[in-house]
């Protein structure tokens, strides 16, 4: 997992976020880099969703 993916992961350790809020937190990042990092999180199967559509970490992924 690259440093950008780790940054997204760390944000999600704090609280659930809408996808666009995670984008806002990393707005200075090139879009393609963000998508690559997001793909790494998806591939790692650590993401869950809450009733409002926000992303959060699966319980066993919070570390």
């Amino acid at each position, binding site marked *: 997992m690259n440093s950008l993916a780790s940054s997204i992961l760390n944000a999600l350790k704090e609280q659930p976020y809408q*996808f*666009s809020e995670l*984008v806002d937190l990393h707005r200075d990042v*090139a879009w*393609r880099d963000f998508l*690559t990092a997001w*793909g790494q999180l998806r591939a790692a199967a650590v*993401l869950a*969703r809450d009733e409002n*559509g926000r992303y959060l970490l699966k319980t066993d992924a919070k570390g």
Partner: protein
Amino acid sequence: MSAEKKTNGGAANADVGTKQSFRDFLATLDHAGELRRIAKPVDPRAFSTLIAQSPQAVMFDHVEGYPEWRVAGGLVSTRKRLAIAMGSTQNDVAMRFEEALRRPIEPIMTNEAPCQEVVYEGDTVDLTTIPYPLMHKLDGGPYISATCVVSKDPEFGRNVGSYRLMYRTPTETGIDLVSPSDMRLYYQRQLDRKRPLEIAVAVGVHPFEMLAASYKAPINTDEYAIAGGLHGAPVRLAKCRTVDLEVPADAELVLEGELLPIGWSADEGPFGEFSQISGDVKWNPIFRVKCITRRKDPIFYLLQMPWENDWLCAPVVEAAGLQALRNASVQPVAIRAPVGSCGYWTLIASIKKRPGEGKNALLALLSVAEVKLAIVTDDDINIHDPDQLDWAMTFRVQADKDVIIVSGARGKHVDPSIRAWELGKGGLPTTAKLGIDATIPEGIPKKFYTRLEYYDFGGTKLGDYK
């Protein structure tokens, strides 16, 4: 049910296919003054908000981080631009579409495939190379919305539909397969065998292919033939590289792969729906992409929700309404799926009525897809004029005699009033349907509806009194 009416490919290779491509439509819009070109480089996170501010369709000639790509969007966000696409007046788009349904033209195969000028297979497949747009504030991710998705079933043959794709990883997307559709059936049949369903996704095709894909055709109807009927010439198809499917040869981008046999188990959405609502998380299959093909200088089509989807829905639903009326031996005069109902949930029709046909017409219109409100008037009412429609509903309707309510019909998830969230993964919702017969009731002499006229109207001219 037999699949014999569906083709497995197309007729023999020939050069008689349609020359109307996505690029030709962009040129038509440009010529009509309906395409705004933006030269300044734009980030894919800004496409939708910029398109939403433009009265014209938009072409982004430079995309930040994607030097090979251009992006076009908002192409049919108005009925005017839809009419330009259809080559008809705004009020005649349904008739135009219905005419094509009556005169389908089978597609042809070609070896000349601009959509395969560049090919990525195996380890080179990477969806992040596409300017995948982030469209709405509450979307679950970036989406590809302007899709023609092709699949095939050994018994039923080929199907073409339109399904959104949410980015997941460089080789996987979510796909919304919640609503009843032929492809959902095909997927279920493969799922029962624990096998994947091969699909191919064409992006950047002419609006005729999009309209045909949106039409809920009988399962043994080839949507490419409907598109051919709209073009007045065969759609040129190319054989896919890695799956046994055919795509429009002139498409800008094609994704080939398979729906994994995991059922409705992966989170997908929310996505800004064509119902003009933000939507909800759904549980859906995953599309694994095995091959990406595209033009050398591709133009990505961003179908701007909700308006483009709504205006693409309207003629499809209207044409289905016309067919339902004719099948019921009712003579339609005009039909309208208002954009307030997203071109989908309401049908208003005027008819040349014989006794009892107001109700027959309602039953026919309410049988169309998930239409949940139908209004029928006589042919003296201009249904495109809301004041005339209100007048008919005020003076030709008795609620205890002229209103039909049907419970438990097929519904659509994106309508919050049907409480789809209570259904669980893969559940299918139902809805109530309402019909209003605003034709002159049987037994009331027409003289009671004689419109007032001003004395000497047309004889005495205002211009003569200055």
